[in-house]
């Protein structure tokens, strides 16, 4: 166990060290990410300028949701951007490099890449909250919320990564088509940063099953509004289930890949 953790830590450190060579890339991409998040967020500010609230959700909730999704997305892609490379690895055969090693290939694939832009996402949440609360005076956050926010961010990050793994593992069946998996990933992000509160049952059915964005952004924000143990347990159970499902689907796909190669 310890040696596995050491290997994973070494892989992560190796990833981060690549940034030292090209700091300009890291800064430019992080700033651009922050800028694009802000531009998208402004659309919601414009919206709530005319519409007071939508079924009880207002700018405060949308701000919290944006911050959480940015953190979750940023953390996932900063540490585990390798998941997005699964289709390329499958189509190019580069995955052979990982499956010939004695350890399970998934952790090494997950840690095989880090997105420099994701750092902009990670820092976007605190920047947004400070700006909205400090400059506009809108009460987005209290200090008592911080532990719960951090815990929910960790759970949502695991869920987000698991969903990424599921979506990109589909490439084992789709002949490594990267664009289709990319489109599904886009759907995950679209669902995650949209107002799911009050949506019709059809949308809810999708966001709590196929694309579990409901557990990633909607329920955590509901918990920040009013904490209850039942909802919290649902998030924990969903996290465990989707993590298991992701590993299961990845293993299935990998076996299929190995059989096809044999």
């Amino acid at each position, binding site marked *: 166990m310890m040696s596995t953790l050491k290997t994973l830590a070494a892989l992560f450190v190796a990833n981060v060290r690549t940034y030292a060579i090209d700091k300009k890339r890291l800064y430019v991409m992080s700033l651009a990410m922050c800028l694009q998040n802000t531009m998208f967020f402004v659309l919601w500010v414009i919206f709530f300028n005319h519409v007071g609230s939508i079924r009880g959700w207002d700018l405060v909730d949308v701000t919290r949701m944006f911050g959480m999704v940015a953190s979750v997305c940023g953390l996932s892609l900063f540490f585990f951007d390798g998941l997005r490379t699964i289709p390329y690895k499958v189509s190019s055969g580069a995955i052979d490099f990982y499956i010939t090693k004695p350890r399970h290939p998934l952790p090494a694939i997950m840690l095989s890449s880090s997105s420099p832009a994701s750092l902009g996402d990670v820092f976007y949440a605190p920047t947004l909250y400070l700006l909205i609360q400090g400059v506009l005076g809108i009460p987005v956050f209290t200090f008592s919320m911080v532990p719960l926010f951090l815990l929910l961010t960790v759970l949502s990050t695991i869920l987000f990564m698991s969903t990424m793994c599921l979506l990109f593992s589909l490439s084992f069946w789709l002949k490594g088509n990267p664009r289709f998996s990319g489109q599904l990933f886009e759907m995950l992000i*679209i669902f995650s940063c949209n107002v799911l509160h009050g949506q*019709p049952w059809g949308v809810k059915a999708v966001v709590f099953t196929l694309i579990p964005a409901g557990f990633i952004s909607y329920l955590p924000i509901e918990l920040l509004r009013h904490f209850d143990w039942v909802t919290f347990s649902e998030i924990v159970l969903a996290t465990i289930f989707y993590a298991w499902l992701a590993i299961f689907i990845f293993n299935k796909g990998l076996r299929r890949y190995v059989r096809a190669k044999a």
Partner: protein
Amino acid sequence: MNTRHNLSVLMTAMIMGLRDGWSEKLVLLGTLMVYGVIIMLYAGVMRMIPPADIAPLGLTQSQMIWYIATTEFILFAAPSWGFKDIQNEINTEQVHLDIIRPFSPALLRIAFWYGEAIVRFCVLFPFYILTATYFAEAFEPSLLDLLGIIACAPLSLFMALVMYYAVGTSCLWVVQSEPAYWVVHKGIFLLGAMIWPIVFYPDWLGAISWFTPFPAILAVCGKWVLGSSALELGAAFAHQVVWAVLILYALMKFERIVLRRIQGEGAA
């Protein structure tokens, strides 16, 4: 080389784009799925808006749904990922093969993408009508409005593709093209009024947006489903034509700068 020859070269590139666009069936399916999901989500949001909040703006929930369905339709019809091909060609120096041809590489590339865009437009159009009608629970535009959208779309697509070309070449100056892509794409969202019509915007932001080319890409097409007057539609179309001409002129100038940069220093 005369105009006829130039047009035939562009036509050939466009036909290649048509074939390429049609061959990627899975990507087309993905596009329909993502488009459908976006409209479903935003239709849900629009349905939750109290009608009294948007009545002073002269809008209804149904119009808002049709508006976003129209703007997203145009955005989805223009293939945006082509900028990565340009970046890749510059980084691998394959771009040198493109620039030795006796024809504008930018126009050739845009004509190719235009072919892809036509396929995507044709595939998405019936889906757009069905999706918007289903979620808005009403067929909002008249036949004339639909014809208006079809008439405005070619210039919208052209301008979007020129922007994606410029984004692709931005890696000659900035470390990668992605940052420029994110900013331009969100610029189209925000200043092009992709989600909410410009009447939603504060006056100052609405005025600023009309001084940029972004509304000419999306808002001009969206105006057709908002029950705008003939005068408004005419002004919007004139705005689109002016920006299309300016963008074509800028492209020609910009291409010279790009060529000089490629021949001189290469990627950043």
